[in-house]
């Protein structure tokens, strides 16, 4: 069959920009992506690759359904949504952690359920069931830190990078649950029909570690 392009879904934002730089350094550049325009898909026919930006939590969906062959996604998304994809390698960048945080004077009262605000419902459920703690989950989509400040919940489970936002709001990390970094994922069927191209790209990307 005719050789086809590798379609790559990148997460919008800092992580995606960093990831694109890794691709570019490995010889899969696509200069038009840096131009300020309204295009949605960027191609480099010579390198056999095309890129598009999507919401970080949607990357795995595009890859799972084959609209993208490859994607860059945080481990948090993989653990939260368990998409049916290949998790080819840890790119060793975008490092941070998922942690439990609460007010500086937080004291856990084991006599009642712990109220937890988070956007990572599954990660939170799995963590607390592993330590046998009864919880009540409040699913939020943003500004998670507000919940304990306003007294809606006791703690939050969220991504912590530097901890600045937490400190500025008088919150502290209580426990670290998981280390997180960016992973290269692939569609399971694409991998079968573009094995060589995907293996080469994976090899080139992991060389840059």
């Amino acid at each position, binding site marked *: 069959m005719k050789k086809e392009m590798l379609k790559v879904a990148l997460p919008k934002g800092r992580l995606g920009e960093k990831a694109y730089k890794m691709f570019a350094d490995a010889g899969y550049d696509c200069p038009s992506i840096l131009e300020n325009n309204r295009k949605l898909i960027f191609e480099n026919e010579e390198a056999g690759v095309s890129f598009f930006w999507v919401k970080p939590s949607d990357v795995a969906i595009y890859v799972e359904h084959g609209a993208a062959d490859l994607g860059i996604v945080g481990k948090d998304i993989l653990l939260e949504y368990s998409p049916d994809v290949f*998790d*080819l390698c840890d790119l060793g960048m975008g490092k941070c952690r998922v942690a439990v945080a609460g007010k500086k004077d937080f004291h856990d009262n084991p006599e009642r359920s712990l109220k937890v605000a988070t956007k990572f419902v599954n990660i939170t459920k799995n963590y607390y069931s592993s330590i046998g703690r009864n919880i009540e989950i409040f699913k939020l989509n943003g500004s998670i830190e507000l919940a304990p400040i306003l007294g809606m919940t006791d703690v939050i489970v969220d991504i912590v990078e530097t901890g600045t936002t937490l400190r500025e709001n008088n919150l502290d990390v209580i426990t670290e649950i998981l280390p997180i970094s960016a992973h290269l994922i692939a569609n399971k*069927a694409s991998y079968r*029909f573009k094995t060589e191209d995907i293996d080469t790209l994976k090899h080139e990307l992991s060389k840059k570690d």
Partner: protein
Amino acid sequence: MKIFTESEEIIYKLRDIYEKYGYRRFKMSKFEEYAFYMEYKKFLTTQNIISFNDLDGSLLALKPDITLSIAKNAKTDENTKVYYNENVYRASHNIHEYKEIPQMGIEYLGDIDIYAEYEVVRLAAMSVKQIAKTAFARDGEFAYSLDISHMGFVNALFNHYGVSESAKAEVLECLGKKDGEGIFAACTADGVPADGASKIAELASVHGELPALSAFSVCEETEKAYEELKVIFETLPRASINIDFSIVNDMNYYNGIVFQGFVHGIPRSVLSGGRYDNLLAKMGKNVGACGFALYLDLIDLYRESENGYDADIVMLYSEGADIPALEKAAAFYRDNGFRVYVCKKGSVLPKTKKIIEFDGDKEVLV
């Protein structure tokens, strides 16, 4: 004129192939006792089952799986070779609701030797090829892949390097995702020495021909599995068959070869199967079993619709038209293989290639 959709055409072609290999059609009821599924819960890929009460109060279920029902009826003193074409009822992963999924497949139960295994794998390869060729060819070109692994081989390898029973499920899960780093971490956490852990992690990146496997053979059991696969690889037409350890199935049920089929154009596996003697053993039957299922819903879901018209010709008539003459005019085009939609002027028209206005006994092309 094309009457059959691609998936209907595939079903007829596959029935023909299976019949020619001596498989008989197995027709069954849509219901099964609910308690039956609770006993073999882990064999099912879904844990959500539609249940309801029969008139006598007993709890029934709409079948989420066909293999279990066929295995239940397996005879121990003779071979059973059957194929089926039925609907199963499962919860969809993406949206939280039940779906009716058309499934086709074969099961070979009884004395399963190397020839029987070969035959099942051969039929699996032919089935995937048929789907690729009929519904996913572009300019006459198509691609498919049947990927094979061996649970006996993988299990023996785990035992050889000392992976504990409790850690096997996690290591298998990482293997299914080709997550070599995850395998290494899970193995070392389980106390497997680093060189063994990295050898197991290497399995994740294997994709290709049979020699890839021999490098991992470590004991009598893996050697036996290797010989088994060698016969299959040497007898099957070479192209489009690969060793890939990311094909994993529950070791509690599957003990030998396992395989999945992929078609270029469908983002998920369209066929899944393997050797499942362990399930029969759990049912108290001392027979071998091997088979596969095809997910026919994926064909219609992912094939490109090339025909953008509801009818080839729309024939318009006015109030008081000569009906016998109108019918004759339409019949002329139908007899020549066109789909003709007759309707009164002024009605909402279907999407068509050509509109003909019937005026008395004249036809005017619009």
